[in-house]
């Protein structure tokens, strides 16, 4: 593509350097969430569980960041497995969703200004950064993510063992590769809360 605003050759040296911060790895478990915010602590709890296992080929990242701040975490990896909470209000608390994503470039999101995880992946690909080729997202239906210091709801806690088991399976199995732009993303409830 022809550069329309390439006005500063002095900045070209930037392109000769690594484009992102995370080290290269085969599989990364990206646990999203804030340990201080109720149900949103799920990601950090899962990361803590996995850090107890000896999984030398697995890069475990736990962060409360969002949007484009996640860019460093979706690059320099072949397979990305994401754990997060999701609030749809349409399923019982603790319901686990697997997002079988076949459409990374999902922009625009619900707003022109919206940049979520998948939009960040799309940006990484558009900029020809070494973005994850395969992505699997496991999300748990949550509700209380706005009260500081609140414990996770028991239904979320109860979902963790199954979630861990599913993650271990996904980490050990090949995931479906992303297909072309424009296909539908489907979120399929695969375990209902008791």
């Amino acid at each position: 593509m022809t550069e329309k605003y390439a006005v500063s050759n002095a900045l070209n040296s930037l392109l000769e350097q690594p484009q992102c911060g995370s080290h290269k790895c085969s599989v990364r478990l990206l646990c999203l969430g804030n340990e201080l915010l109720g149900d949103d602590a799920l990601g950090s709890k899962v990361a803590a569980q996995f850090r107890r296992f000896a999984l030398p080929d697995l890069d475990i990242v736990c962060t409360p960041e969002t949007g484009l701040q996640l860019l460093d975490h979706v690059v320099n990896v072949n397979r990305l497995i994401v754990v997060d909470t999701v609030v749809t209000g349409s399923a019982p608390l603790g319901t686990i969703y697997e997002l079988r994503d076949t459409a990374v470039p999902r922009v625009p999101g619900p707003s022109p200004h919206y940049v979520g995880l998948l939009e960040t992946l799309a940006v990484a690909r558009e900029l020809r950064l070494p973005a994850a080729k395969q992505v699997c997202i496991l999300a748990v239906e949550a509700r209380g993510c706005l009260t500081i210091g609140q414990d996770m709801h028991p239904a979320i806690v109860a979902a963790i063992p199954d979630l861990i088991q599913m993650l271990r399976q996904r980490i050990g199995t090949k995931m479906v590769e992303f297909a072309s732009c424009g296909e539908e993303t489907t979120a399929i409830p695969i375990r209902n809360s008791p």
Partner: protein
Amino acid sequence: MPEEEGQGLHQTRPEGAARTGFVNVQRRITIDPVTRLEGHGKIEIFLDEAGQVERAYFQVPELRGFEKFVQGRPAEDMPQITSRICGVCPTAHHMAATKALDNLYRVDPPPTAKIIRELVYNTFMAEDHTLHFYFLGGPDFVVGPDAPAAERNVLGVIGKVGVETGRKVIAMRRRWRELIALVAGKTVHPVFGLPGGVAKRVTPEMQRQFQEVAADGVEFAKFTLGLFKDVVLKNTDYVDLILSDLYTHRTYYMGLVDDHNRTNFYDGWIRVVTPEGKEWKKFASDQYLDNVAEHVEPWSYVKFCYLKQVGWKGFREGLESGIYSVAPLARLNVSDGMSTPLAQEAYDEYFSVLGGKPVHHTLANHWARLVELIHAAERMQELAADPRLTEPDIRILPTESPREGIGVVEAPRGTLIHHYQTDENGLIRKANLIVATQNNSARMAMSVEKAAKGLISGGDIPEGVLNRVEMAFRAYDPCHGCATHSLPGSMPLLVRVWDPRGQTLGMLRRDLDGKVRRE
């Protein structure tokens, strides 16, 4: 984030609850969510019988439980706790909390510690402002407010500026983040601020890295401002949009300035100017309670800050209304200039083109942000060249008994205040945070209402209206700090129309594929 009692802040309440009746007698529009990038919220617009906008509300969910959570915890934990609560600008909270601890223990950090802190802080400001301009403000101005919806997004920005330029943006951002991590330990949760100083020295090798990146940063900032001029200022439609009355409010402004009334992000005096641009007051941070009060409305969790002596007069602009604004537009309005040469040049051009001080045009925040980007980059260069940067004296151990401490910084989104009270052992008894978005909340509510009233007529709601209403608050870069994450499928954008009897007449829905559907 403050709790109900407001930590001694004076609060007013609305004269009546009549507004709650609007739901039943008006047509109602809901835009939900505004965005979840930096917290989530919604806009509610109420129409009268004629289809005209009567009121519009900007609503956000507020984090709860902060005061209870921190009670009894050591004050020294606050820089870590507050930076963990906010996933958007943790460095700002870390720095405000660290300064509050200085004040709490009555300890003045050595010059080298202050230089290190300010260096890290300006690095953070440069990174944050860059991210906002290219990826959040970009869809509005780089791509354009009237561009097809499918292009008005981050990929549209990349398409407009080019892939190589986009890669430079990402690379520059990465280098700034690496420098922050080099000194602060982590970019997500900095751990270097201590009462009386910092935890880590800057070595000569680190200084060399800062100098190298700072030089590139200045070039990058100049390039970005050049791009803005090329794309925005050469487009008369964009300039007309910036200057339009639809996005204009004549309010007071607040921001930190140094002893010469120049912009300073890290430290200084809180200066407030009137809607006419005259200094209303300049005060030390520990006098904020004498000057700032909060107003409560039944339709929002957010408390609306206003100038106590001027008073709360409703959502009105002008000299008689205590509503004020913070963030880049406000910071330039309260300053007499910039302390660095290129930023001063950009500052002069900004006010020259926009008709002199003060600038009341909300959308000018995007331009002001780039003036500040240049300043942050130049200030980095100055600080990185300071020979005191690598000196070993980086902390003075506190010896005073703690009691009360206040710390203020200019976060990217505006003035950020941390206020702690402790017992004699340094355990938190009360804590109050006034975040930038809270300072801006009243003006943001006015902006949303004005845009809605100006754009919606006769009940006709074209899709482009949604974006233009969003633009009214997006320029403030609002942040509600909850950093919750969103997966596709959960949050479409809705405009719902209600008849006077509360029945839904129809719904305009913008889905995740960017298409607008009527249901």
